[in-house]
């Protein structure tokens, strides 16, 4: 979250992925930082999954990840 906040400050569009266990933390920290850093949640847990399961997770969240860093309509420069 801090990384994305800073990377956006430096001009790179960002999103981070976290497991569902981090949902509250991510939301609260975004509010606390005063910056709505976009995030995409993946099902918890991660570390005990097989490679095939994790690849399936990646495929499942991929559309949300793309949506978080793109816009269907071009934004005006801030």
């Amino acid at each position, binding site marked *: 979250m801090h990384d994305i906040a800073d990377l956006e*400050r430096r001009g790179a569009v960002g999103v981070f992925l976290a497991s569902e266990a981090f949902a509250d933390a991510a939301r609260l*920290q975004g*509010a*606390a*930082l*005063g*910056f709505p850093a976009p995030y995409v949640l993946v099902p918890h847990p991660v570390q005990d999954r097989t490679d095939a399961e994790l690849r399936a997770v990646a495929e499942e969240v991929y559309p949300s990840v793309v949506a978080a860093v793109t816009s269907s309509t071009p934004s005006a420069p801030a």
Partner: protein
Amino acid sequence: MQGPAASVRAVGGKGVLVGSRRERASGGGQGGPCRVAFVELPDGLVAVVKRDCPTCVLVEPVLRRLGAAVWCQDDPTWFDHEDTDLELSYRLGIETVPTLLRRENGAETARTVGWSRTQWEALTGVAGLGEGLPEHRPGCGSLSVDPFRIDALEARYGGSGLTSRRVELADLEDEHEALFDRGWTDGLPVVPPTPERVVRMLRGTTRDPQEVVAVVPPDLVACTVEKVAVNAVMAGCLPEHLPVVLAAVEAAAAEEFALHGLLATTYFSGPVVIVNGPVAARIGMNSGVNALGQGNRANATIGRALQLVVRNVGGGRPGEVDRATLGNPGKVTFCFAEREQDSPFAPLAADRGVSGDAVTVFAGSGVQPVVDQLSRDPESLARTFAACLRVNAHPKLPMAFDAMLVVSPEHGRVLREAGWDRARLLAELDGLLRLPAGELVRGAGGMAEGVPPGVAADELPKFRPGGLLVAHAGGDAGLFSAIVGGWVSGETGSVPVTREVRA
């Protein structure tokens, strides 16, 4: 540090607010900016005390005997009620403790401060009060008029009249980073413009916070005294600087100054503020050693406040409307006072029609040194000035760019002793800056830049009439003066503007 008298104004006569506040609390009840529901004062005797005050301690048995409802400012356990956030004290306009009030039908009918047996007996209608106490004992200062607290109290509870949007910073946001992140700074840290600081800043002027000072380019936003104060806080100004900032904003937003064009140009220039009159010394401005440099708070912050107003209120940001190719460091801040003492010239603003406290804004683009350590007569010195002024922007471009000549005291002495005033110097320079057309034509000197061929006149003046300003500033030592290059002359460019500084 204690006690400028000015910081204890506007606390009297707030009793009427008590009733209106109660209506609001009972009507809505959701609080909003009113963090605490205001207490409902009972009829009968009400007192405000602080335990730190010996007179309050002295009258404690009297208050208990009277059965008064007592609010204590510093010790929540002393009496039944506490006023540690000082809201009640502020709203009642308590200046001294103890203060004893009598209230009937929800309104105050009598008040006395300190301890006086006769006055307390008269107010309460009870005889024989305070047996063993002296007849009279003065009270102590109320915490609600403490100079260190009054601004916060006014911002929180007072009718401070502030209407700017209140922005709550998130818990983990560093307050300085937060202001950068919102695009509100010039690249240097700013002082966070809290309501308390803005209230304090506004004490620097008698003008109403909602009075419109100017319509600020490029977005043409009506800028109030309050918005100038917010940006002055951010720039680091003191309240006494505010009137000068207000005048500078007014001057820079004048139509003939052409601020929008000045911002949008690819040229170097930005507003330079020159201050005249007794106000300069009174607020600690520098007109002497290093007058155009760093290190003086008033000079640095007044110029910066103007630039922050242009950025934040007007919307003039570099890379957006501001298209300067290179810019110049003075676009952060460029403000100085004219050295009126031992000047050969009348004050710049006075010569421009405004005597006394005034600011003049000039579209300036940086400092070019003028060295002449040998001239002992004004004719020779004027030739040095002319030679250096000729190269302003380009030696072959006449009447194209304005300039300001800042004459230092040692150069000024040569002029003063010869009796040369500003008009005389300008007349001499005008004569010396008639440039032979042949030298200016495109291609002459092997330089493509220049005037188109076919100019009818034999000579062309370097400066348009009024295109050269002359001021006096600097330290006692140094046979140097300075040229502050300007922007394009005339209708497409900027005309210097002078405005009175009002309290």
